[in-house]
């Protein structure tokens, strides 16, 4: 059989292009997010123009119903999205990789139970889980959203880690390494983690994008970070009410969001090829 990818991929020559576009989109987002720490076009909290102004040279994306500059808020939204994506993936990776490695070493019974529980947790949709965690915390904040999304991601990461780690642990070089006196923690650090890292990092990039979408959905539902934290989801929710008079506000934050998520997905595609030497050779 030909070594065709099972995953959904485009032809090989486009991959370096995918990586470049991905890096450019994510890089732009990071740059804008960092910029907002020092400078924004206008004060994000106070009116800087008339209400619901159409886009102009002064306000590139127009103003919202309180006269605040949309571009400023979208730029701050980029920061929020990065914080959520990074935070959720960091939590998910820490818990998920730890659990996954432990499951790979566990006895058959314990491993079966963990695998079944993870399957059920994954079947439970991220958004519902996040809604519950946010509702359970006293007040909706950015951190409760990050925690909720991180927990949801950890189940997915744990399942993946478990499968990958078990595959590595079956290899001959693990036996060799053990025979030559390496402890199990040493094996994990020296052989398992480096071997599963390429696949994991691709998954992290994908989960990052999903976390950004999920946070936007939470904010859209009114369960995200409260004002004055600008979030693309809440911007879209507020703009929906004025879509008849000022449609631009209901479109621009969405474009920013989709650009970041696509950038992350392209980055994942690109990483898949860079990070996995066996794939490169088969081409």
């Amino acid at each position, binding site marked *: 059989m030909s070594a065709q990818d099972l995953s959904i991929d485009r032809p090989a020559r486009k991959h370096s292009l995918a990586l470049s576009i991905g890096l450019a989109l994510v890089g732009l987002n990071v740059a804008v997010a960092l910029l907002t720490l020092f400078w924004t076009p206008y004060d994000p909290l106070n009116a800087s123009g008339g209400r619901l102004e159409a886009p102009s040279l002064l306000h590139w994306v127009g103003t919202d119903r309180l006269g605040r500059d949309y571009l400023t808020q979208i730029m701050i939204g980029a920061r929020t999205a990065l914080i959520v994506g990074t935070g959720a993936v960091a939590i998910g990776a820490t818990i998920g990789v730890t659990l996954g490695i432990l499951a790979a070493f566990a006895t058959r019974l314990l491993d079966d139970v963990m*695998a079944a529980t993870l399957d059920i947790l994954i079947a439970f949709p991220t958004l519902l889980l996040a809604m519950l965690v946010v509702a359970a915390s006293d007040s909706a904040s950015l951190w409760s959203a990050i925690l909720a999304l991180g927990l949801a991601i950890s189940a997915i990461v744990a399942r993946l880690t478990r499968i990958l780690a078990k595959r590595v642990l079956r290899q001959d070089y693990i036996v060799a390494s053990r025979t030559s006196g390496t402890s199990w923690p040493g094996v994990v650090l020296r052989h398992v983690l480096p071997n599963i890292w390429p696949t994991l990092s691709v998954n992290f990039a994908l989960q990052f994008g999903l976390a950004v979408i999920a946070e936007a*959905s939470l904010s859209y539902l009114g369960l995200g970070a409260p004002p004055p934290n600008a979030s693309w989801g809440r911007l879209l929710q507020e703009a929906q009410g004025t879509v008849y008079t000022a449609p631009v506000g209901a479109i621009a934050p969405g474009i920013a969001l989709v650009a970041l998520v696509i950038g992350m997905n392209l980055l994942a595609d690109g990483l898949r090829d860079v990070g996995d030497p066996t794939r490169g050779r088969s081409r």
Partner: protein
Amino acid sequence: MQKPALRLQVSHPSDERKPAILAYILRRFAILILSLLIAAVVLFVLLRLLPGDPANALLSVGADQQQIEAAREQVGSNLPLHEQFLRFVGSLARFDLGTSFVSGKPVIEEIATRLTVTVPLALLGFVLAVIIAVPLGILSAVKAHRWYGAAISTVSQLGIAIPVFWVGILLVTVFAVNLRLFPSGGYPRRGWQNEGQVLYALALPVLTIGLVMAASLIRYIRSATQDVLGSDYLRTARALGASFPEALIRHGIRNGAVPIVSILGIELATTLLGAVVVERVFALPGLGSMLLLAIEQRDYPNVQGVLFISTLLVLLIGFAADLAQRVIDPRLRERATGAAT
């Protein structure tokens, strides 16, 4: 022996074992019940984590200790935790979901009313997605090197990066604001007594769900078709004289459908729950808006009821999809009876 790469990476805990088909159904049913129990535990724990005693909802401001005790007695929050849990599981098993703190009506009645919005919304969106995705997915795999094959897969890539609520808002902007074809939201007061109005109100929400789901389905169908196209059995069929469409229809569809069925199950379940967001976009009185309202009002019986029923639906869909997969794929069946190697 080399296995044809037919299956997507869908984990299937029972793949390695070989029980008889009846044993498989029983085993799968046991997993269903076990999953429900785990879901009940998760629900119970999560609801105890919510701030405040659920009895508070029954009390007015400045209630004295006696009234508080009476209220706690009524909702059962004065019992030890394990007794609360047993009562909880017992009433779930009887579909007794309690009465709403806010409206005083039985939760199950409210859910039944809400389901008449959410179930048609999810099902119609699902059907639309399948109608869009099956031909486009196959086309984009068969004609991968033509411009439209590439265009279809690029657009479907876009589809997974777009939040469903934004698609809804965009459709509102186009079809409600600019073209004035459909309403931007709302639902007829008398519900299904007026079918025409319901379908009119559901048009944009269904389109929203259908488009987003179609985008992710296309990718799976494309991938499954590619596997079929590269398979040995298709080449054999062609070598034996079958025309390409004939070979594809007789051998391809059934083989390709196996991994797709479980994907469909997952997608349908996701849609049912993803309807929360779409209902919010179009102000539809479905299960999702019931959950949001209940969370806001701290109406615990309603929160619990919606979560339990939606989990039940998700698990039942997964169960049905797994059984359907066995029926479609004779190899899984044979393996199940132990006849094949």
